[in-house]
């Protein structure tokens, strides 16, 4: 028995080693970024072609230097607060609006549903990047310029997320929603208490992606906002990255600062993914 177990363990070990290698292949820029934010620029470039590229400065006192200088240069906290505010609002809004729409498409056979859904797929095609000016004109017309709404609203509804939610809801066995209906739940309740919790993986995914999307947006907030107190973190990043002279360690430290929340959000949402719902209500394990 021991031998068998050790063979099993062996299998686990070597697959884990392989996967770890694969993981490192995807992880190295992140590591490099964090590590590079912890050494003088000179070292970044001196180390770049050997393994030291992935080690922070040997001198611990160097680790925080880039950080202290960007905190000195910018009001990083305010930017972060702004960014968090925009991203959180947009994520919540996006989850609400898109999941509701997905619910409508998945569970109601309203007239015109197929047509609208086809249109939605067609909308996926429209490249937002080429419509900046027109979008700005619309935002100006409806008078939301210079308000957080201008940053949040345009990115909120996405055909893709609607599509994702619709698929997820369509997969939930009707018997579960039926049970809820008989329990006297209104449609909104079923949506809120049954469907949404049962599609946590999708909620988590859309949440993560919305948050990241909003967090990384730079041009649009800059266009619709004028008060630099309202700017998101990306503005600072771009600024650091483009104002000559560019100090790579400072760039890396502001990028690290801006990446950490993304990773936290990712982990936060992934927890729900891991839990999984495991089963549908009909006794499937």
């Amino acid at each position, binding site marked *: 028995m021991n031998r068998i177990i050790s063979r099993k363990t062996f299998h686990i070990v070597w697959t884990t080693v392989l996967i770890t290698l694969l993981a490192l292949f995807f992880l190295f820029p992140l590591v490099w970024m964090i590590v590079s934010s912890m050494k003088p620029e000179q070292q970044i470039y001196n180390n770049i072609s050997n393994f030291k590229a992935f080690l922070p400065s040997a001198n611990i006192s160097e680790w925080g230097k880039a950080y202290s200088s960007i905190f000195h240069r910018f009001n990083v906290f305010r930017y972060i607060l702004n960014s968090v505010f925009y991203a959180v609002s947009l994520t919540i809004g996006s989850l609400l609006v898109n999941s509701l729409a997905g619910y409508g498409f998945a569970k109601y056979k309203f007239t015109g549903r197929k047509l609208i859904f086809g249109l939605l797929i067609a909308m996926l095609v429209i490249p937002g990047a080429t419509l900046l000016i027109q979008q700005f004109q619309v935002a100006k017309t409806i008078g939301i310029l210079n308000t957080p709404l201008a940053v949040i609203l345009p990115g909120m509804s996405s055909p893709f997320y609607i599509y994702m939610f619709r698929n997820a809801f369509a997969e939930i066995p009707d018997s579960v929603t039926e049970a809820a209906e*008989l329990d*006297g739940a209104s449609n909104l309740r079923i949506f809120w208490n049954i469907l949404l919790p049962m599609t946590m993986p999708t909620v988590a995914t859309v949440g993560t992606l919305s948050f990241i999307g909003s967090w990384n947006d730079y041009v649009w907030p800059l266009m619709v906002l004028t008060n630099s107190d309202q700017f998101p973190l990306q503005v600072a990043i771009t600024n650091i990255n483009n104002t000559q002279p560019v100090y790579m360690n400072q760039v890396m430290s502001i990028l690290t600062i801006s990446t950490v929340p993304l990773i936290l959000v990712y982990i936060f949402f992934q927890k729900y993914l891991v839990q999984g719902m495991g089963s549908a209500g009909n006794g499937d*394990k």
Partner: protein
Amino acid sequence: MVKIDLDHVYKKYDNAKNYSVKDFNLHINPQEFIVFVGPSGCGKSTTLRMIAGLEDITKGTFKIDGKVMNDVAPKNRDIAMVFQNYALYPHMTVYDNMAFGLKLNKVSKSEIDKKIQKASEILGLKEYLKRKPAALSGGQRQRVALGRAIVRDAPIFLMDEPLSNLDAKLRVTMRAEIAKIHQQLKTTTIYVTHDQTEAMTLADRIVVLKDGQIQQVGTPMEVYNKPANVFVAGFIGSPAMNFFNVKLENGLVHDINGDFNIPVPEGKLNILKDKGYDGQELIMGIRPEDVHTEQVFLESFPHNVVESTVVVSELLGSETQLYTNLGGTELVSKVDARDFAKPGAHVKMGFEMNKVHFFDKDSEETLDN
């Protein structure tokens, strides 16, 4: 506590060729306990689902207390239902599964807790209240489904094979509990089961279904003692009634193979003759328990005796089932364990002709009354 009327109800699934429920007429009195029985796929669940509002009614009207409900949303029908496949909320604990409906009805927290504690006590689920359905055994899940419906105190209660995954003992207990609850609350109930004992003991009236059509509606004793047709006669009772193709001649029935030739009791004979079946072919049905092997019986009714060889014999504790071959059909008899006979043994069996049923050969309708 409410009255339910189903008038000429039909159901056809969107992608199906045939009707799953046909010309369904049933009038359920307030407080009545109705049991649906019928072969797998005969439309029991479908009918329940139409009543609950989960399936559209293709044709016909469905009324609660005289009000047409065809188009009322399920949540406004105030019906509690136990689903055949449980349909538990997988993301909620057992407790929350049961509490959900109550919460929606704004029942107070303490009230909810009281109800759930009571129900879970009855159902033996106390220690599982904090688990999610995935970590329960099949029977435990079914009990949760039952509990979720029980706590609701709805005026209509639909149960689709709510005890099928429980052991015999628990089943008896549960059955008794369901009877008790019904007696207390007088909820109008429709209950689907495959268990004859459940059907017999719980039902005020039994509805026998076949291929989406009602075959007979009646009290348990009625469907057992006066089956409307061959199907009902064969379906109710376990083991099933034995049927023979016989011919009535000179007050005797004899089967085609000539394996027996038995006099028909006067009362029955007169009815059959009145209906013009003298000299005609008929279907004769006899229940296994009406086939006797006791010496006393064989001696008292020598003309009723048939002989055959045991093919299979099953000893079931207090009684024995003998499978023999007679008149070209299998004859099952349920006799005392004392009269156990090994396969191959030659046995004499007496037909209790007063309990025999006769049916028309073509329409298969009963001829008894």
